[in-house]
């Protein structure tokens, strides 16, 4: 069962709408930027979460994406490049009742903030991380990022980048993340549903959002987001459902030994019974790891949805319980006694 600490809106209070979550600041992204959609879906889903907006905090690093908190009419902190996870950890630890959201980019989270990112995942604070992956540095005007494909030509790599990219989902899984998902800027319904699931998950929730930077990396994800190519290039992950995809929903993914392959389910040779069935609640990460990697090297569709969602204790709860136990065992701290602790002597 879900047990969130974020205090709920009391019954009978007026319900909030999307407008309540819009700040008075002009949104300053380039026209057509995928960030607009992510902002809109976030503002739309917030009223459904049932928490008062004063209990919500958005914390970002630096990048186009990281301007996000200025546009949310909640508490917000636009911090420094790569360090949002650290500040969010402090906010959550000091007040576990807050609903804390980290907004970050592929450069922010995986280059300069890579170290904090992996440690945030393993500590499992109950915070939500939205990584806007546009596979480019937007704010600094178009250098390649740690998620850019090898060979990418940009201003800083005129002959093509030589480094191998990160797979953010794999990295999060390897770091012990308890909730790992992927969604798309151009699929509002899916995005809202995933944001809501992330909120409902108790523990660190990580969502990689494919985001189009129409200025510096236009169309990077069109094969996954556009009507004519989407169905054949993505597979929507649903718990307990077989991996079926394709415009006609007539293709599936099956394991041939250790090797995944795409099979047709329409011609009678294979049925959905033969396909891999998704289990997002598996403690073991084998399936999630495999799903994260399957489109890297093989001609397989890219998974969209929740890779993994499991319950582990949260850092702030463990710390709070240490405090509670210490108070039970030693009594509530008494400063006078503390200062006079140990060997003392009196001069009269």
């Amino acid at each position: 069962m879900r047990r969130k600490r974020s205090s709920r809106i009391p019954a009978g209070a007026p319900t909030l709408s999307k407008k309540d979550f819009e700040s008075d600041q002009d949104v300053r992204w380039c026209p057509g930027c995928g960030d607009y959609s992510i902002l809109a879906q976030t503002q739309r889903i917030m009223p459904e979460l049932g928490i008062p907006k004063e209990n919500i905090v958005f914390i970002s690093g630096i990048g186009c994406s990281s301007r996000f908190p200025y546009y949310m009419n909640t508490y917000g902190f636009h911090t420094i490049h790569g360090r949002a996870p650290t500040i969010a950890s402090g906010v959550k630890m000091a007040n576990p009742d807050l609903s804390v959201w980290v907004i970050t980019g592929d450069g922010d989270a995986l280059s300069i903030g890579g170290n904090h990112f992996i440690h945030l995942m393993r500590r499992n604070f109950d915070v939500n991380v939205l990584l806007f992956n546009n596979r480019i540095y937007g704010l600094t005007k178009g250098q390649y990022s740690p998620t850019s494909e090898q060979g990418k030509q940009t201003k800083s790599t005129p002959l093509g980048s030589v480094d191998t990219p990160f797979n953010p989902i794999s990295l999060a899984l390897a770091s012990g993340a308890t909730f790992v998902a992927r969604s798309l800027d151009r699929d509002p319904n899916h995005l809202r549903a995933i944001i809501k699931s992330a909120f409902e998950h108790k523990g660190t929730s990580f969502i990689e959002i494919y985001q189009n930077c129409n200025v510096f990396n236009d169309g990077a994800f069109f094969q996954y987001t556009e009507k004519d190519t989407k169905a054949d290039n993505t597979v929507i992950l649903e718990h307990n459902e077989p991996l079926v995809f394709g415009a006609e929903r007539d293709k599936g993914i099956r394991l041939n030994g250790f090797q995944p392959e795409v099979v047709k389910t329409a011609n009678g040779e294979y049925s959905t019974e033969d396909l891999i069935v998704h289990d997002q609640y598996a403690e073991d990460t084998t399936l999630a790891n495999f799903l994260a990697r399957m489109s890297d090297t093989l001609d397989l569709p890219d998974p969209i949805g929740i890779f993994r969602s499991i319950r582990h204790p949260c850092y702030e709860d463990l710390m709070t319980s240490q405090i509670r136990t210490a108070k039970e065992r030693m009594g509530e701290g008494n400063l006078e006694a503390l200062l006079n602790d140990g060997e003392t002597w009196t001069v009269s």
Partner: protein
Amino acid sequence: MRKPVEQIEEATILFAGDSGDGSQTIGTQMTETTALIGNDVATLPDYPAEIRAPAGSIAGVSGFQLHFSSEQIHTPGDLCDVLVAMNPAALKVHLNKLKPNGILIVNTDNFARRNLRLAGYEEDPLEDDKLTKYQVFRVELTQLTRKALEATQLSVPEIDRCKNFFALGMILWLYNRPMEYTMKWIKAKFAKRPQYIESNILALRAGNTYCEATEQFAVSYDVKPADFEPGTYRNIEGNMATVLGLVAASYQSGLPLVYGSYPITPASDILHGLAQYRNFGVVTMQMEDEIAAVGVAIGAAFSGALGVTGSSGPGLALKAEAINLAMIAELPLVVCNIQRAGPSTGMPTKTEQSDLLQMFYGRNGESPLPIIAPSRPFDCFETVYEACRIAVKYRTPVIFLSDLYIAMGAEPWKIPQLSELPEIRPDFAGSADTRNGFEPYLRDPETLARPWAKPGTAGLEHRIGGLEKSDVTGHVSYDAENHQRMVEIRAEKVARIADALPPTEVFGAPEGDILLLGWGGTYGAIRTTAENCVADGLPIAHVHLRHLNPFPKDLGDILQRFKKILIPEQNSGQLLQLIRSTYLIDAIGFNKVQGQPFHVFELASKIDEILEEIGRA
């Protein structure tokens, strides 16, 4: 018949041996006992950076010096009355610190060929004529300890590990100190391993009776208790005083303490210390690096807690960008820098004061921050408490600039009454009371502090960040004039802290020839020097600055009253630069950058030199 006891005023003892010999332990125990029987005491632990340098080597020598007196003292002493050298390397490193005719106790069992070679001695130094100017006591310390512990079930290596207590037993006899406090400590320390209680106590007693019995030791000494103000006292190290000061600030303000850190010498003991106080609601977070450590403290401050981070120079370099964020976001934050010898990794276990300008200027843009420095171990309590008070009152990061020498040094501390502690009032913003809703940069007209609005408070939702913000509203702003105004306001806010500071204490002559101006851990050496000069009737004074930014308002006037301003520092002249540029005066630097504190005689001879120049002597 009892041997004669000679009354003396003060003594300095240096325990030295291999890292594994336990010199730090017995030095600390001697300090505890000495403080408890009422002497004033000051200590100087000096140990190598390597955890286990090769046994018997020069690099592995660990020393602990303590100075105690029936008068008030401020330093661990220049030269020693007693040197306990557990091996040849310790003798080699520390013999030059022993006074002529001083007592040298050596463990002759460790002076075999091999040990001599490890210490780089060609010949046995115990045969050397040079030692004739000392009173040398050759003690078969290892053999005697083994003999005393014969009846125990312990192995030889275990028995040998008790020999430091044999040495301590000797010193306790030599200075007529009781063994009971040490015994009590041994019992508590080894409560889970009772076999070591018996053995260490046996060794302690054996050392004591050895001195009583052997003809070598003809007299013992006694140092009467010092005159202290009435009150309850305890012995305290600088870092522990820092820990207690932080807990006290949290307790008195009602703000929960969140301490973010990453282990580093000599700041780690603050993390270890605070981690013990979960029952005070203290949260300690050991993070993945120093950036994350300051990050959690900033996040906690944004949430409405007392956010504190601590490190040493290399860590402060990493934290700079985040501290700057807290500066422009105008959030309360306390940053502890326990300085050590730099640059880079430098000499991690040696003291220095070379981060002052880093703290002043080590951030991009115009980034003024209050900087305050403790002057002695117990002063860490009050100073770090003051750092918390300023941080909360003015909504700013404050640098608490301590150093290894005071962090690791110990002395008696008069425990304050809670009622003596200044008030720390968080004064959180309650509701949006302006016509335009909540304005996060609407300032207190007197202090220029902005409101502290914690998430969870309805109606105060607002956004802050590192981008320049417009005055009053806090919205992002690139307006040219606004930027200049904000730069000026941030500087003015820090400058106004000086408005509420007490007058500066001038020790010694109110005006005259030389003003000794110091800060931080040089206090003891400078004050002792000044006391000696004043006793000699010289027109000399001492001012020790706690507030380094802003400077006290009366400092300029005080500086004008002296012909020469002498600034002793353990760096190449950093306060010197600041004083010269702020007050346009020709101050003189006296600089020692050796990882070791000043000796009083060094300062005294510098003063003589200056007096001669100005035609006094």
